[in-house]
């Protein structure tokens, strides 16, 4: 999904709010929500891909302006409503006000059928891929060329997992890109490593 969550390389943002005031939590409810979503995952109410995708499905302005734990809270509530654990109306009654949830879930997809596997040292191209459902491809690597540095063991395929679609597990590749391949001369000189699922790659021909 080409959503506002896909922030890598986006410009116009100010300084990072780094400093002695940095904190993990700013209030007690943040700790409790962080605990609750993890409990819901452990109870099997939803998986981590569903959790991440429900955050991405938040109305874009809501996503942009919410704090991190408000995003957690919205994903947790959305999935609990979608899975039938609680109703939206009940949540609003309990909260004593409107309770904005994420927008509706679309369709997922399974693995790409004709995918190749790669070895460290292989040059690869990221597919020019557009997926309306969940996808863990940051748009800044779309269509770009990089080199495989390492291979991980197979993981569940997020494009399927977030939508309850059957799929095979896939290795992810540690792919190294040069920042100038990604953003021409409008970036600092660096190597950027991204964990890329096999279905997102094609051999460099």
């Amino acid at each position, binding site marked *: 999904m080409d959503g506002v969550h896909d*922030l*890598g*390389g*986006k*410009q116009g*943002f*100010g*300084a*990072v*709010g*780094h400093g002695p005031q*940095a*904190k*993990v939590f*700013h*209030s007690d*409810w943040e700790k*409790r*929500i962080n*605990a*609750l979503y*993890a*409990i*819901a995952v452990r*109870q099997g109410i939803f998986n981590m891909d569903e959790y*991440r995708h429900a955050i991405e499905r938040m109305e874009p302005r809501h996503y942009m302006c*919410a704090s991190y*734990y*408000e995003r957690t*809270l919205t994903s947790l*509530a959305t999935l*609990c409503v979608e899975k039938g*654990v*609680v109703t*939206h*109306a009940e*949540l*609003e009654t*309990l*909260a*004593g*006000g*409107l309770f904005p*949830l994420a927008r509706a879930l679309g369709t997922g997809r399974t693995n790409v059928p004709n995918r190749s596997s790669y070895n460290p040292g292989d040059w690869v191209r990221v597919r020019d891929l557009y997926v309306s459902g969940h996808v863990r*491809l*940051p748009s800044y690597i779309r269509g770009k060329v990089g080199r495989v540095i*390492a291979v*991980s*063991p197979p*993981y569940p395929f997020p494009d399927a997992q977030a939508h309850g679609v059957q799929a095979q597990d896939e290795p*992810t590749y540690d792919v190294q890109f040069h*920042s100038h391949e990604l953003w021409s001369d409008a970036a*600092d*000189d*660096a*190597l*950027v490593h*991204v*964990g*890329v699922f096999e279905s997102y790659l094609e051999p460099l021909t």
Partner: protein
Amino acid sequence: MESNSDLKAVAAPVERAAAIEMALTSRGVATVEDLAERVHLADEVWLPERGARVVAKAWTDPVFRTRLLANGKSAVAELGIELPAHHRHLVVLENSHEVHNVICCTLCSCTALTVIGLPPDWYKDLEYRARVVRDSRTVLREMGLDLPAETQVRVWDTTADTRYMVLPLRPAGTDHWSESQLATLVTQDSMIGVARALEAK
């Protein structure tokens, strides 16, 4: 997803959080004990001090360091540090005078939180996520880390279920320090890669 049409204003996050907590505890999805346990983990267990022990051991024990760089997950398990099931892989990125590593998560805010501690607010903010991957050296400089021009920057974007931690350079003047003394120099920032380990005083 029917909404309560007679309500007008959006409830504050703290009220919404209380509502979902009440809904889940009243149904037995989460018990008071579950909640207390998870809050305890976040407050008392998943702290940067854990990662600092890993770093200090790697600085003083070359054989452990080799194991850590080869397989982070099994090496930190030796120190009693477990990763959640969905953190499949822990890759430890060793800084040198030639290469400086920094980690981020542009799509959400993934980290090896059981090792380096839960990430601070700025790591999860839109600013860090948008900028560090493209303007790495500039962002690091703004954050107080001015790297020599000859040091190569490597940015690691946590887009899959591999987790990363940075093994910072051991500070000068610590040759005879003990592992536990060394651990006091290892900050969370240095394991994210936005700072060096503290200087020896």
